[in-house]
């Protein structure tokens, strides 16, 4: 076994996903004298290593091939497994994203090793990776280890760790040339459509207004949008609203959506299912408006207003006129 922590660089549309940088910074904090190696697959004309190197890993291993973007998960997992068998890293980290979860699990099966999903924390005891993951809608925390198999693999929830640049460290850049990509004739990614982005994501917003079923109606929506504008807030929603116009999964707060950490969070008509509240625990000040005095959301709130969301929004807007 090699004394290396590997990180899979997730890239889409010529952008590096922020979880990649977050993983580099976290790995540097817990490294315990292990080398941090980023594995980057990119097109022939891409140079995403220029972005990644600012975060100061020890090495970036690059494999350039235009075909990878059109391949399914199986091809990526196969390439990664060949690399793992060549260098035998101690551990291998992925973002707990759609792609990260999908290829890491395939890789796990290829390598017959353990994989812990959706970790919230990582540390080392000598060479043993201690992985903390939530279960049962974040109601239970588990510490998981993989003592007899390598690499120790984990996916890590995005936006738990803060990425920090480290320009002092100049990483070694290695080009991988000894891999042969075999086309997967049974699957083809023939189109990638970026989803309409509504500007900055709620996960980085300083002020957030969360809308739940109790406040979602055509009378309130324009008022909520006006309020968001006045407060400089982003609008997020609970899971049931992701299917309702004008929202999408991009706007979802909670365990299967975005974890947010704003200074101010205003919950309008949000009941407070665990699936939602697990995504708001890092908010500094939480105000909740709900007409049900027993709504669980109040257990998580600093201030509560028991009453109609519509009245509260109007009163708040009046102040800013």
């Amino acid at each position, binding site marked *: 076994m090699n004394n290396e922590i590997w990180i899979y660089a997730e890239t889409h549309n010529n952008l590096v996903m922020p979880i990649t940088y977050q993983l580099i910074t976290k790995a540097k904090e817990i490294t315990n004298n292990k080398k941090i190696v980023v594995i980057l697959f990119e097109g022939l004309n891409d140079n995403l290593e220029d972005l990644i190197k600012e975060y100061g890993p020890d090495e970036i291993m690059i494999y350039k091939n235009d075909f990878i973007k059109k391949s399914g998960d199986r091809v990526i997992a196969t390439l990664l497994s060949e690399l793992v068998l060549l260098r035998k890293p101690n551990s291998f980290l992925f973002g707990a994203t759609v792609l990260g979860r999908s290829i890491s699990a395939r890789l796990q099966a290829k390598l017959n090793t353990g994989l812990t999903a959706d970790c919230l924390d990582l540390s080392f005891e000598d060479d043993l990776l201690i992985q903390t993951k939530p279960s049962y809608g974040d109601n239970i925390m588990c510490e998981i280890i993989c003592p007899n198999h390598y690499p120790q693999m984990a996916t890590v929830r995005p936006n738990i760790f803060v990425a920090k640049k480290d320009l002092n460290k100049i990483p070694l850049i290695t080009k991988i040339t000894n891999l042969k990509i075999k086309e997967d004739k049974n699957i083809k990614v023939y189109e990638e*459509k970026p989803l309409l982005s509504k500007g900055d994501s709620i996960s980085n917003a300083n002020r957030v207004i969360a809308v739940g079923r109790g406040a979602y109606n055509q009378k309130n929506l324009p008022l909520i949008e006006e309020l968001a504008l006045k407060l400089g807030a982003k609008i997020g929603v609970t899971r049931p609203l992701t299917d309702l116009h004008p929202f999408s999964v991009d706007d979802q707060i909670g365990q299967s959506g975005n974890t947010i950490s704003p200074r101010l969070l205003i919950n309008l008509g949000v009941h407070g299912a665990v699936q939602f509240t697990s995504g708001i625990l890092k908010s500094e000040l939480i105000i909740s408006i709900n007409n049900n005095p027993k709504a669980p959301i109040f257990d*998580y709130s600093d201030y509560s207003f028991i009453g109609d969301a519509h009245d509260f929004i109007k009163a708040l807007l009046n102040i800013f006129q």
Partner: protein
Amino acid sequence: MNYHIVVCVKQVPVSNNLKIDPVTKNVIRGTEAGVMNPFDKNALEAALKLKERYGGKVTLLSMGPKNFEITLRGGLAMGSDEAILLSSRSFGGADTLATGYVLSEAIKKLGDVNLVLFGRQSIDADTGQVGPIVAEFLGWPQITYVNKITPLTDGFIKATRLMENMEQSIEAKLPVVLTVRSELNNPRYPTPRNIQLSYQKKITIWDEKDINADLNRIGIKGSPTVVRKVWTPEKHEKKTINLNSDPNQAVLEILEVLRAKNIL
């Protein structure tokens, strides 16, 4: 094109208030009622729609203790043709790898399967790993997090995969493994007639011998990961201050707090 679709389902606890076995660190099952994992219902709905349109057969597959039959019975009442429960003491304590191995061996035993559907993840363990592991053990391609399925002629299937910031259109040749999102469809409710019919349908029980399992790859022995510690995180119950019941007064109170904390 005739489909034999296997839908892999998991029974999850109804409530999140669980008991943990202090020795095995596993959740004590059987003490609380169970329901079908919600995402698995979307997978089953997709399978039933394909069957209705193109013909074929839908088989439910699950691994767990005998009381998982109640979930399979519910799936039969939604319209599945048959159900198989992989149940044996030696399957117990399995992590995702050992679970994926057992499911894939059962699918191999069935032989004529050309589509396997999973929910995107279970809502208890929340890994989303078992689908891709089964795909790998079967040697099939996979499309995960599917929000749209369009069957094509001559044994191909087209699906869109909804990711964090984009949507991929993917075409795959059967056999293939799909894991589906809740955005894909709205699962049906069982009709009274289908509930009645479900009691005439068979739930087959298979153990490790029935699927010729390698005993080193099942249960605790076949699981590389070890749960070392389990705890309940401290409840985040805050001291909540009630605002004035008059909204105009309430917003004035809030404004004062926000200014004091320099948030506004």
